[in-house]
């Protein structure tokens, strides 16, 4: 293996291996506590039982999981797009920023649970209120970070673009947006972590029958402790997967943060390079 190849393998081991190790540690700790303190099985199951409750009921759970994923993804996309748009508008129009910012802060002070009831009244028992709740949670960190990023772009760089005769539109897409990528992705990652929480709250408050949240409630009232814990694990897994996906997009979209040399795309080969 070449030296960069070895370094890359080391990086992968650290970025994938360490989180898996910490996950295993959590399960081991859980097992030790339940066994060591003789915790009753109706209070907490052993990890194995919780996992089995998921795998054995997978055909029942899968459509519910899909539903939660759908709410999370749609809500996230709507919230992120709205958050980005609001952030740009507010950064560009200081008057609007003064006007809208307090309203946005107010929107986040409303307890989400208290938001669910009126949303159901307005939108009915459907996917819509859940998407709205997720978007409600996701847009805020995106907006705040985009405003912050756009207002910290190097003034000298903007002046340079101006001296070259660049239009505001070009300057925005070629300079301001890439320069804002770090805070933008911070906002998206914060949003991604909370998106599933929003979806589950929405399911609790606005479900018409079948959903992951109601499945858990049902298990709880049946004293099926293993299924209660198992469902929590599934919800957590959805949240982590979505977060990791956003991180993956970030890694892909910002190669200059880790690389010294740009990737070579097969569809963007420059003939001149081959000749050289």
């Amino acid at each position, binding site marked *: 293996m070449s030296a960069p190849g070895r370094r890359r393998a080391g990086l992968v081991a650290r970025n994938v291996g360490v989180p898996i190790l910490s996950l295993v540690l959590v399960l081991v700790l859980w097992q030790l506590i339940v066994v060591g303190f003789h915790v009753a099985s109706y209070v907490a199951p052993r990890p194995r039982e919780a996992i089995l409750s998921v795998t054995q009921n997978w055909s029942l759970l899968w459509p519910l999981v899909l539903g939660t994923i759908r709410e999370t993804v749609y809500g996230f996309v709507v919230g992120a797009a709205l958050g980005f748009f609001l952030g740009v508008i507010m950064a560009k129009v200081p008057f609007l920023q003064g006007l809208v910012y307090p309203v946005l802060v107010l929107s986040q002070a409303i307890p989400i649970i208290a938001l669910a009831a009126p949303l159901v009244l307005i939108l009915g028992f459907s996917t819509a209120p859940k998407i709205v709740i997720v978007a409600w949670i996701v847009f805020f960190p995106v907006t705040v970070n985009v405003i912050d990023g756009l207002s910290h772009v*190097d003034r*000298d*760089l903007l*002046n*340079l*673009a*101006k*001296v*070259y*005769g*660049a*239009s505001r539109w*070009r*300057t925005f897409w*070629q*300079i301001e947006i*890439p*320069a804002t*990528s770090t805070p933008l992705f911070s906002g998206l990652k914060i949003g991604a972590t909370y998106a599933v929480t929003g979806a589950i709250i929405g399911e609790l408050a606005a479900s018409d029958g079948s959903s992951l949240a109601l499945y858990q409630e049902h298990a709880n009232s049946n004293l099926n402790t293993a299924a209660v814990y198992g469902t929590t694990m599934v919800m957590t897994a959805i949240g982590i997967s979505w977060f990791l996906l956003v991180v993956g997009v970030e890694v892909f979209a*910002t190669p*200059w943060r880790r*690389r*010294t*040399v*740009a990737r*070579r795309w097969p569809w963007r080969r*420059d003939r*001149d390079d081959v000749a050289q």
Partner: protein
Amino acid sequence: MTEPLLSLREVAKTFGETVALAPTTLTIDEGSFVAIVGPSGCGKSTLFNVIAGLLTPDGGDVLLRDRPVTGSTGHVGYMLQKDLLVPWRTVEDNITMAKRLTGRVTAEDRAEARRMARAYGLGEFLRHYPSALSGGMRQRVAFMRTLMTHQSLLLLDEPFGALDAQTRLEMQQWLLQVWRDAQRTVLFITHDVDESIFLADRVVVMSPRPGRVVADFTSPLARPRTLDMLTEGHFIELKGRVMHLLHGGAT
């Protein structure tokens, strides 16, 4: 080569109470290399910002080939002590930045950028991101980006000010080589008197605030410039006169 490319007529700029630039008149010939030296805060960068169109002067005109360009942008190449390379673009894409911001980067632009980078010592780094480059290399990329604006007039505001003495000397020789090939007109701000005399055809000296032109010397050195000229009698003599103006006799 004695067509006036740039004419400043009585341009002045005041910020509130501060007179940054007293009425200044200056003519720059096409193809020449003119250095501007002056104490810190005397209005050198303000003068550049007026020429570039970032600032509108309180009075006076900026003429480029007899065409008034006062207060408008898009007619000069411009480079600062900060290289202002964008970290998300490769060296090649940074060099072609001006076209990306104002038009369309064509295959010819790319080829030209690569040719230039290879000719002037950056061929190995075309696909690198700027974070992988040293300070001197970054300034080379920034200068090539400035050349790729295809403007006749290049404004360089202390471009080597942040480099160590050794690198700066290398960069000065490099710049002269590129300038000779590129045939552009250069206005070069520096506070390094040696640098101004070594590089330029003309050395314009500015006074402390409010800044104005107090002397305009013609460099006695022949071209091409070589390092041993730095210890020549002509060089030392002119250096003494400039230092006298800048520091009031403390040479």
